């Protein structure tokens, strides 16, 4: 099977909306092969020359679909993700933010028994420079190459990618897993992908306070990742119990702190930076 992120037949759910149409244009400009889009009730229209269908099922009568990128507004996003799961789309990328947690609980349960992988929600998506742009990561600041970035934060992803590009270090993958509490793909799935892909020669992991996922990633790195890993955890000076922007970014127990996560990653063999500017310097070496 080909790489999950390199599937050529991409559709956009919510293609006629403001974000959907604007980002469809940007994805097309970056070379993404968008074969169709959906918005219920708008079949027959076109967005940037891409045909609009009422449903994924209608598209699948004409095409095989590898990936769906979702821009559907939050109140309807659960329905859109469930539609993509029901249609057995291998990769579902959900950009939409502010989806209710209880909606994501339902999605999470459906995903478990499905053949689909979800990236997001509240994610900037994935960018494989020169190969595929699935979401809103600005391709103009990327460079094709062999580094791989995974992050929970959109802007820190861009910042790191642009910093590496400036230093002439290109990227095979730039992936934002999203800042929400309940989400699809996590660090471990991305680390596995990077470790297994012979094109990738170094891995950059960006995390933040809240939750335990970076700690689980550290355990995974220790036992499974042989490629060099560079890491930065944002929020070293976060006050306890206060939510910082992201729904998931809240410091509950000590285990969720930036200091502990950084320590665990260091112990696991990653090179860790104390600030984002240091991270770029660390990778450049």
């Amino acid at each position: 099977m080909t790489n999950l992120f390199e599937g050529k037949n991409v559709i956009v759910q919510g293609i006629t909306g403001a974000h959907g149409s604007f980002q469809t244009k940007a994805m097309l400009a970056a070379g993404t092969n968008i074969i169709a889009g959906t918005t219920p009730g708008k079949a027959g229209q076109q967005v940037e020359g891409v045909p609009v269908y009422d449903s994924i099922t209608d598209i699948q009568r004409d095409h095989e679909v590898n990936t769906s990128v979702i821009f559907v507004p939050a109140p309807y996003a659960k329905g859109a993700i469930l539609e993509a799961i029901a249609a057995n789309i291998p990769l579902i990328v959900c950009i939409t933010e502010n989806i209710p947690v209880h909606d994501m609980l339902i999605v999470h349960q459906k995903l478990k028994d499905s053949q689909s992988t979800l990236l997001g929600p509240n994610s900037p998506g994935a960018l494989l420079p020169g190969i595929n742009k699935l979401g809103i990561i600005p391709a103009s600041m990327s460079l094709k190459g062999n580094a791989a970035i995974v992050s929970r934060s959109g802007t820190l992803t861009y910042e790191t990618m642009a910093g590496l590009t400036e230093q002439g270090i290109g990227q095979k993958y730039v992936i934002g897993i999203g800042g929400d509490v309940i989400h699809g793909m996590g660090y471990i799935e991305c680390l596995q992908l990077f470790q297994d892909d012979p094109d990738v020669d170094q891995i950059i992991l960006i995390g933040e306070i809240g939750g335990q996922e970076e700690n689980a990633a550290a355990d995974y790195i220790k036992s499974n990742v042989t490629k060099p890993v560079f890491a930065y955890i944002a929020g070293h000076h976060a006050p306890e119990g206060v939510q910082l922007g992201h729904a998931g970014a809240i410091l509950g127990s000590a285990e969720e702190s930036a200091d502990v996560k950084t320590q665990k990653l260091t112990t696991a063999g990653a090179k860790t930076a104390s600030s984002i500017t240091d991270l770029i310097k660390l990778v450049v070496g």
Partner: protein
Amino acid sequence: MLGFIIHDGVAKGYILVGMKLLEYEAKQILADSNTPIPTSSLITKTSQTLPNIPTVLKSQVPTGGRGKAGGIRVIESADEIQSNIDDLFNLSIKGFIPTTLLAEERLNIKQELYLSVLIDRASSIIQLIAHIDGGIEVEDNTDFTSWSLENPVFDVIGQELADYYQLPGQTFAIQDLVENLYNCLIKNDATLIEINPLVLTADDQLIAGDCKMTLDDAASFRHDWNYEEKPTEANFVTIDPAGNIATIANGAGLAMATVDAAFEAGLKPANFLDIGGGANTETLLKAFNRIVEYTNLQAIIINIFAGITRADEVANAIVAAKQQIDNLPPLFIRLAGTNYDVAAQILTDNDITIMPNLESCLTAAKESIND
């Protein structure tokens, strides 16, 4: 071993996203979901119908530890009530002054238990958490018992919970309680319902003695929520009111990274501020106006990587802030991304310098403060 700790009366290590309700707001929702609560009335500054004696007066503030702070008072005689009401309206608890008091019947307590229903972050499922020793010392416990409520069979879980509480006579009531709480969590888009204590009264009734509830802000579009305004704002957080610099950034991660880098550079950031995607001139001006209230402020660091946010909007806001706000401390600005060229032109036309990166902003800010 459960992967969470209890602190400040709220189960932490879980999502706490959203709106924390006051006790009386949470209890009203419980009552609407058929969970028994004490008989009660509300007292505000303008509406002071006195309750029957004896009563328990409870300050309605959005924080834990009220009992220890003197915010909960048992009133046994009619002469004490008015002075205690006045006193509670003036009592600050962890910086919060109540606008409402809850007057409840005094429960005849036989036993205090702990029970909560919440969304567990790690497993992405709803969990029921219980402890046989509830009350204000619950934080000292580590041996909580939990049940997954994924596809729950309430009769079975309720039976097991009644066994755990060693209250076989309450099995039916506990089965109902668990089912009602689960439905309440889902129906109200709550992320946490914590009943502590769950009181077993002398006449063997199970009643919610206190309740903490958090609702998911993201679901507000499908509810008609009208609760007292709470001082929770995820995107603007004061870290140190005596800090010497303020930070403005876009995106939660970049905002945290900006604060980290400022500390690393030896500066003292007063705040964390994520202006979010799609910020415009108006929201930015508002942020500037809040920031200049910090008394020790000597510099403002602005770090924007424009994606959905447009750099020219930010530039316009900076120009407007310079014109409209007196005593604005020096600005150290790093801008990149969408519409950077337009933004750079706007700032240059107004004699405002853009720095090439965050590091140079911090270095320059530090030098200007030391001068």
